[in-house]
């Protein structure tokens, strides 16, 4: 569970992990223990935090994992993932308001729309790499932002969509505490899907493409199509998060499409650890909790603090929090076995 690439069990790793991924592979019992701790924490969370904050953490966890799927496992830095998070938020809101469908159906509609939007954007973006890929995704996200801003009859412009209902077969989910447990299974499904993608034959090809695209092509893998598929899957998962976010807040504003939302997603992943999957979940928990704490304490310049922490992490712990801890544990484990 800690690791990224599905490497053979007990493979001796003589060199420390380099680059984007920690290839550490903990023994089975450690991974099951971590899974148990993670699930128990998820079940306990709204008892220890404000439930509304706990809901935000779940949504952002999905968003971060979606971004890491591209950044950590495909080698593509999307700087426009707010397009998928935000589009899904609007579609989910509109479906829930106008059709009155149960919220999971609305969220699914939002996520599917986000995935559909990821097809043309991804098709054009994956032809570029590095900073150019980031710029193309940013440009499309800005385009989506301005369309949403201008299309007031549907999106209500700067007023936003208000009163998104939390309909689920007549259950009373107005209390964030109960709503948290209603969305938890959906979030866990999304996270499990991301884990499966990373640990699939497809995921293995993605890592190959990330590390050496020319070699992957020489092996007969159509690199663009693989990247596009990863992009669409990532768009879908980001859409799941965005849709749940809309229902969670009962309100959709243009903020969900703003470029700072894309940037925050990248920061969350870098903070947690690129190419670690669960690092993104941890990063989401830290950033959302910290922002809530700072805004509650009346501190104005929240960005200054999160930005400062981001700079510190990038300078001191380049593998992010999860990656650094995993590397430490692996080293300790290897030393103990000797």
């Amino acid at each position: 569970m800690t690791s990224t690439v599905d490497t053979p069990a007990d493979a001796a790793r003589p060199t420390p992990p380099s680059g984007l991924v920690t290839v550490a592979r903990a023994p089975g019992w450690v991974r099951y223990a971590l899974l148990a701790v993670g699930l128990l924490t998820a079940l306990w969370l709204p008892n220890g935090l404000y439930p509304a904050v706990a809901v935000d953490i779940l949504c952002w966890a999905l968003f971060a994992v979606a971004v890491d799927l591209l950044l950590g496992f495909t080698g593509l830095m999307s700087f426009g993932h707010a397009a998928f998070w935000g589009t899904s938020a609007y579609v989910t809101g509109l479906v829930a308001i106008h059709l009155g469908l149960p919220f999971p159906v609305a969220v699914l509609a939002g996520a599917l729309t986000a995935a559909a939007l990821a097809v043309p954007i991804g098709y054009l973006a994956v032809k570029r790499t590095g900073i150019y890929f980031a710029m193309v995704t940013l440009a499309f996200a800005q385009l989506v932002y301005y369309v949403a801003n201008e299309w007031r009859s549907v999106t209500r412009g700067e007023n936003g969509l208000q009163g998104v209902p939390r309909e689920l077969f007549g259950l009373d989910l107005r209390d964030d505490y109960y709503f948290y447990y209603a969305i938890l299974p959906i979030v866990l499904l999304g996270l499990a899907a991301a884990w499966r993608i990373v640990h699939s034959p497809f995921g293995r090809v993605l890592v190959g493409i990330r590390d050496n695209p020319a070699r992957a092509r020489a092996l007969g893998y159509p690199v663009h199509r693989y990247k596009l598929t990863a992009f669409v899957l990532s768009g879908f998962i980001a859409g799941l998060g965005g849709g749940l976010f809309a229902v969670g807040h009962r309100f959709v504003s243009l903020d969900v499409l703003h470029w700072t939302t894309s940037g925050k997603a990248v920061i969350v992943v870098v903070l947690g650890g690129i190419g670690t999957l669960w690092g993104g979940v941890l990063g989401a928990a830290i950033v959302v909790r910290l922002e809530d704490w700072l805004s509650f304490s009346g501190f104005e310049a929240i960005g200054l603090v999160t930005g400062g922490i981001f700079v510190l992490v990038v300078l001191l712990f380049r593998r992010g929090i999860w990656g650094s801890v995993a590397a430490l544990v692996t080293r300790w484990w290897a030393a103990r076995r000797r």
Partner: protein
Amino acid sequence: MAGQALLSARGLIRDFRGFRAVDGVDLDVAPDSVHALVGPNGAGKTTLFNLLTGFLRPSGGRIQLAGRDVTGLPPEQVARLGVARSFQITSLFPQLSAREHVELALQSPSGLGWRFWRSAKLMRRYTDRAGELLDMVGLAELAEAPAEALAYGRKRALELAIALALDPKVLLLDEPTAGMGLEDVDRTVDLIARVRSGRTVVMVEHNMSVVGRLADTVTVLQAGKVLVEGPYEQVRADERVITAYLGAADAAH
């Protein structure tokens, strides 16, 4: 000749911003032969390789594989048609193990790579075959080591194992013995001699003793053009070839 050739090029041209790296090359690679491309640095050998494998688009000319026009096809499609290549500079996936490299290559022709909803454990179906290939190139003991931890000669051997895993009709080897010690060179020559049966091999090679031991046909390139083509003994004795090599040596001083 052109009718029998497995891989052939006609009038192949490649320009780089006013510089013609490959200038009207005709090439016919006979089936089941080992065909060596030699020539001084900058003669256009690697550019020709990249044209033949789809990594570069020709500025002019045609390429045929088994009678089929493959000009301008992207590298992954050329690979799927049975042309596998190695790279001059070792090109691997640093963090994957040797076995995972071979499994990834073995998986490539199947659709398994698209199954994002299935477990990577499915790739274990290739483990046995991967073991055989690694054994063949002398990497059986290092199967679980990540590529970045392998010594240089082992990396070259792994490159060969990956190319063989594709079970190619044509194997293109870009300087398979470059930078190797004598022992590794011998091992590689033996290996190529073993795997060439039923296959066509095109290789760029600087080491003339390797060329002499393996090649049926030698094409000498100079300044992007074919200078001489023929059997090794004949080419080696050719005045023009000697001049070209000596000239290049002079120019290097």
